[in-house]
């Protein structure tokens, strides 16, 4: 398996605040990595760094063989990021949101229909403005957008927030399918410990640095969420 994310002593500042204080990690293609840690530990910043959205103050890093110091622009189209906020246009309907991003990504109508059907967004919800959606429905829409983009790396920040049991299962099965197809998935969450696949890894982030990375993912560390 080839390495898709490789960070070495990456330091990232948000303003005057050192959000990441020297992260070193290496992630292979097709891995599922859970990133855990208390609030403010730097989980979101780490995901934004991997997406090429934040500049590194020092250190080196490559994602998909793009240099994080110089090739962030080129990297970005290959990344799917689901942040705290869903990034939808509140005044547009679900369908209009999907259509705009689909044409930006170059996806076709068939893919839109499939993704919307998968997340239960077809029918009545299609023509509801996203500002009138519930939190869970907005998340589902954001996931559907992730599907139609077909990125090589998924960076999910608290993906389960606001989702019901059904929604979680849909998300889990869609993550597993994506990983089967060779996608790498990073999940920052403190809600879940296991998404149902045995060879996942867990990274602990504290104080802007990875504090522990188990050598072998032990089967014993899965708890029910």
């Amino acid at each position, binding site marked *: 398996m080839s390495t898709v994310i490789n960070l070495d002593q990456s330091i990232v500042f*948000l303003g005057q*605040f050192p959000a990441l*204080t020297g992260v070193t990690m290496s992630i292979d293609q097709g891995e599922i990595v859970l990133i855990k840690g208390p609030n403010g530990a730097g989980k979101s910043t780490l995901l934004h760094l991997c997406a090429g959205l934040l500049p590194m103050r020092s250190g080196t890093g490559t994602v998909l063989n793009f240099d994080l110091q110089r090739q962030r622009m080129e990297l970005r189209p290959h990344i799917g990021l689901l942040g705290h906020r869903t990034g939808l246009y509140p005044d547009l309907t679900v369908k209009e949101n999907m259509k705009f991003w689909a044409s930006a990504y170059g996806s076709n109508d068939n893919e839109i229909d499939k993704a919307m059907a998968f997340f239960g967004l077809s029918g009545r919800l299609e023509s509801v403005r996203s500002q009138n959606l519930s939190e869970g429905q907005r998340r589902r829409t954001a996931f559907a957008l992730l599907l139609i983009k077909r990125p090589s790396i998924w960076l999910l920040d608290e993906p389960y927030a606001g989702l019901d049991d059904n929604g979680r299962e849909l998300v889990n099965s869609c993550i597993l399918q994506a990983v089967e197809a060779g996608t790498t998935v990073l999940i920052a969450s403190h809600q879940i410990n296991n998404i149902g696949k045995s060879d996942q890894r867990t990274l602990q982030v*504290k*104080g802007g640095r990875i*504090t522990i*990375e188990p050598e072998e993912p032990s089967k014993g560390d899965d708890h029910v969420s």
Partner: protein
Amino acid sequence: MQSTEKQEFTTSRGTRFMGISLLIGIPTLLIFAFLLSPADDNMDDAVRLIYVHVPMAIFAYVAIITTGIGSVFFLWKKSRWWDTVAHASAEIGLILCGLVLITGSIWGRPTWNTWWEWGDVRLVTTLVLFLMILGYLALRQVPANPEMRAKRASVVGIIAAVNIPIINRSVEWWENNTLHQKSSLTDGKLENLTLFTLFLGFIVVGISYLWLMTHRFRVGWMTTEIETAGIAELIEERLNEGNSTVVNSQPQQKDGTK
């Protein structure tokens, strides 16, 4: 000015030399401006204000163009040196612009019988430049990520600098109803002594600009130096925040990884 004579930390051999030249130059300029140079046929003695007004106007442009150049190089090379130059020059440019406006309207009072003449393009456009630089410096004062602020300020600086040629072109279109002296340097009827005094004015104001630039640059450089000096401590503090919550559970965390 005496302060340059003492041993100061922002002082070097270069600035001390400039400072001494100013100590000689400013009184000399005053003597020439008030005593040796003749009164003008049209402007009478009001011409004596021109010796400081015109050089300051030119160097206000120089200062803003320097800000523009510094901004371009900062965006291009990402070099802090250029950013500091741009910031320093903008601040001096603001002061020069302000003084140009003040001396301009003081000069206008006896000459045109009005403090402020909206019909005069050069006054109005200098005011516009003054406001642009004011905006630039306001942006630099906003509390924010210094790099982000510097990037945004440099775009504002570039826009201000490209406005100088635009504004100067606009003078031509506006010329027919402007009151301003048709470029006093070029009408050829000036007496030699008047010309020399004006020349002296350029030199004195030029040295003042360079002297202020050097000192202001060094102050700016040290300000960033102090801001960045705390970074190592900030990182240390942030790491400890991580440690304190997991004191004994992960002993090998300094390595970060396997």
